[in-house]
């Protein structure tokens, strides 16, 4: 591969931030930069990891790359690409794809790939039905894990029923089960995903050849489905808002009330209140198991953990219904639009062979789409938030026994260290002495918290190492919004100009006031009619999409979930701008052109 003059630092040239050197041991040795890494091109996976990663959360890099690589390299034997390597540098996750370039090796892999991948495509719906069953079994198994409480004396049943196993055994066993369940979730996550993306990319490349100037957005509009699990939580809020009006409990919903206050007030409303609460209970399990982030960090809680987002959403929806607006997504119109766009592009193709090929490719996209979109709900949202909640319960046990000052501190230990701390606790409980960890962990936790705060102030370079001449990797383009041009733009010092360029992900032009939101905790600050500027837009932010005029993100491609939802809401979106959260300040006036992908700071 030809390389151009390098414009990014080499991985080995990135200096550790002063005072964080010791804390950096929180990340496993295999995430550290080695001398061989300087030869490869890396980019900051800010889409999945927009913040410095706490020690425990490093599992959300380890687990997916264990699985993704296995499917590429060993399961489906993809001829041209192996797995993804990851490194954690100053708390940030950098990744590098491993391509296969030797034609002999590619050739040898092709027959295996054909045999295996075509089998999966051929039996897609059958296998996907199986997947839907097994993911539910997995979800139930995570939720059913009981975290042992280590009693003063074992329950009598251990003796009188001859169980013969003490609780400290279960402490270790159940933690291992939680970790295994999480790793298994990521295996399921990638079972269909790479093939699904392959179908998209094939269609995208074909469209690009047939219509050289076609945007990813337009291809996405032909592919995207209308009914997906990811849109369901927001739909449930709309239904509950309508039911509140129908049953007459809508008076309980006012903007200055907390979710708990609203619920208490509904409860006072007799039969109507009971009816609404029953519907609410039914809707929240499972549909409130959606992360307020994208499920990659332990602090991305789901709606059930923190009801603020869904209740403020319902309050707004009730106000809109009172004002006579309809909330239902125009699914029929969206379906028609999708079909019409596809039919018209098809009609512009030069001949019957092209049209037949277009039909094959688009047909395959429609076959794979439900999985590609729905898996996010079951995996990153439901399973991930349940898993982190389970880890919290282990944190409570450790805190109660003095190994941690606070149960949340468990996330400052990596997953192997948590195993050690639990072993320490199991030993000390067995010995009847205080755990060594009571002295060992608290200073380490404090050191790491301080390091994370320092990491957060660092501006990570968007990429590291030599830039390949051509990085036409369609996967990177669709999901991360990374192109050769984008990299060149990132490599250049941030310009003084008033324009930022990204992916026009959802069409339309609007002007408005910017609201820069760097993490989820700030999401409540967004006001009606503002333009949301954020590092990456999370799927579960849909309830505020009705409130904002447009969204602009640092990272993200036209097939990302944010793009799909923005298009559903008819809201202009420019994603993958690189520097929007640095260049734009809250209060500035912006023009967002979601068609051409240009954001202009008007001041």
């Amino acid at each position, binding site marked *: 591969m030809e390389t151009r003059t390098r414009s990014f630092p080499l991985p080995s040239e990135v200096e550790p931030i002063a005072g964080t050197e010791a804390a950096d041991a929180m990340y496993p040795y295999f995430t550290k930069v080695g001398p061989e890494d300087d030869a490869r091109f890396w980019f900051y996976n800010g889409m999945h990891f927009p913040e410095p990663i706490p020690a425990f959360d490093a599992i959300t890099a380890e687990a997916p790359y264990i699985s993704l690589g296995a499917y590429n390299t060993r399961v489906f034997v*993809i*001829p*041209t*690409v192996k797995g993804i390597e990851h490194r954690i540098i100053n708390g940030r996750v950098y990744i590098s794809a491993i*391509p*296969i*370039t030797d*034609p002999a090796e*590619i050739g040898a892999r*092709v027959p295996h*790939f*054909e045999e295996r*991948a*075509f089998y999966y*495509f*051929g039996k897609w719906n059958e296998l996907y039905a199986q997947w839907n069953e097994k993911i539910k079994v997995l979800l139930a198994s995570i939720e059913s894990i009981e975290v042992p409480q280590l009693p003063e004396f074992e329950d009598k049943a251990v003796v009188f029923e001859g169980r013969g196993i003490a609780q400290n055994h279960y402490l270790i066993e159940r933690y291992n089960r939680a970790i295994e369940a999480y790793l298994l979730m990521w295996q399921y996550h990638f079972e269909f995903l790479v*093939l699904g993306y*392959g*179908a998209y*990319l*094939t269609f995208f*490349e*074909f469209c690009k*050849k*047939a*219509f*050289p*100037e*076609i*945007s990813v957005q*337009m291809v996405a509009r032909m592919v995207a489905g209308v009914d997906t699990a990811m849109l369901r939580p927001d739909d449930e809020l709309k239904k509950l808002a309508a039911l509140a009006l129908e049953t007459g409990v809508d008076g309980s919903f006012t903007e200055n009330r907390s979710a708990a206050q609203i619920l208490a007030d509904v409860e006072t409303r007799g039969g109507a209140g009971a009816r609404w609460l029953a519907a609410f209970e039914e809707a929240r399990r499972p549909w409130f198991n959606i992360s307020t982030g994208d499920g990659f960090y332990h602090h991305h809680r789901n709606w059930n953990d923190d009801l603020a987002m869904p209740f403020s959403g319902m309050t707004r929806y009730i106000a809109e219904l009172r004002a006579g607006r309809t909330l239902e997504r125009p699914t029929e119109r969206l379906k028609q639009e999708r079909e019409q*766009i596809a039919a*018209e*592009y098809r009609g*512009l*193709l*030069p*001949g019957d*062979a*092209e049209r*037949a*090929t277009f039909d*094959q*490719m688009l*047909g*395959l996209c429609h076959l794979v789409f439900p999985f590609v979109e729905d898996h996010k709900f079951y995996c990153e949202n439901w399973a991930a938030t349940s898993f982190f909640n389970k880890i919290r319960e282990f944190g409570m046990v450790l805190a109660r026994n003095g190994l941690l000052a606070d149960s949340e501190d468990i996330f400052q230990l990596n997953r192997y260290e948590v195993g050690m701390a639990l072993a320490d606790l199991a030993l000390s409980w067995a010995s009847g002495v205080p755990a060594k960890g009571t002295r060992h962990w608290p200073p380490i936790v404090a050191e790491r918290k301080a390091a994370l705060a320092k990491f957060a102030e660092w501006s990570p370079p968007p990429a590291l190492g030599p830039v390949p001449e*051509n990085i*036409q*990797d*369609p996967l990177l383009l669709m999901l991360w919004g990374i192109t050769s041009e984008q990299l060149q733009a990132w490599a250049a010092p941030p310009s003084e100009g008033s324009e930022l360029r990204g992916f026009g992900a959802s*069409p339309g032009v609007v002007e408005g006031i910017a609201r820069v939101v760097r993490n989820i905790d700030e999401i409540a600050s967004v006001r009606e009619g503002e333009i949301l500027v954020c590092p990456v837009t999370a799927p579960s932010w849909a309830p505020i999409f009705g409130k904002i005029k447009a969204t602009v993100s640092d990272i993200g491609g036209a097939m990302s979930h944010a793009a799909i939802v923005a298009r559903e809401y008819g809201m202009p979106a420019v994603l993958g701008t690189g520097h929007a959260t640095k260049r734009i300040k809250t209060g500035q006036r912006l023009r967002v052109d979601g*068609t*051409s992908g240009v954001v202009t700071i008007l001041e």
Partner: protein
Amino acid sequence: MAAPHAHVAWFEELGEGDRDVAGGKAVSLGRLTAAGIRVPPGYVITTSAFRQACTAFDPAGTIAQAVETLGTDDEAACRAVSAELRARVESAPLPADVETAILAAYRTLCGAESAEDAPVAVRSSATMEDGSDASFAGLQDTFLWVRGEAAVLDAVRRCWASLYSEPSIAYRRRLRLPESAMAMGVVVQQMVDARSAGVMFTRSPVTGDVSLIAISSSWGLGSAVVGGEVTPDEFVVNKITGELARQTISDKAIRHVPNRTTGGTTEEPVPQEQRELASLSGDEVKRLATLGREIERHYGRAQDIEWAICQNGDAETEIFLLQSRPETVWSSKETRLVETVSANPFANVLSIFGAPRKE
């Protein structure tokens, strides 16, 4: 269908079978008019009128031979013959019936009751069409903002005379086209005092992408854009969704406007405050693109269209179509994307996963 042997035919009378008598441009305008597309009204002076006129400026029938015996490389001789023949055609009086027909049509165009002389464009409409049109186009002359009977007759004669311009003669000699086959229609079309005008391609001129419509636009008459005398604004519209894909607003220093005293057109500077303003509103871009798509559908192939927009006070602007011809640059290099349709619909993914990625 034009009446047999008529000297003039109105656009709306023309059909596909009239190419030989009216020329390609007139037939194309006829088709657009018939399709209900807003074309400024006008008529064509037919080849039958041209042949009749030939009897006035070539009574002995010697011109054809004079041209056909010219050597293909003999520039000096060509120049001399051209000068002599052009002068003859331009000065010869027209046969009375031809003149009467042209002027009667002109008066009708001005409005039956009106004493006012309407400004018209007078252009050639060649009968050697399609294949040779692309290279033949531009060899004849176009006269803009022609007003009054004498001026119209003069412009018609000069159009005919342009058949004997040096490049025109040289072109026919190079292709060894017989002079007897040569004839020309002349289009007389009411002229639009354009606020903005330009060209529209119903595919991308840059990449050939057929899903886009590209519009070039500048202030004043379209001749400044067609002649490349100004850097126009560029608008690229998605043909399918009608969404604006991108636009570039240029600094448009000059514009062509009618010269109301002498006729013809004048170049003038664009007022400073207007130079960098978009010469089309978003709505006008949309309307133009819709029109482009309609015309393309009508012809069943990509078109190269000239258009103009008129502003009548505060009323909604009116779009006029001045000309439409098939796009030739990209259409001629169309290649197939797919040789054979894959027997296994899944095998297409090998284009992504099965070979090293290359540009």
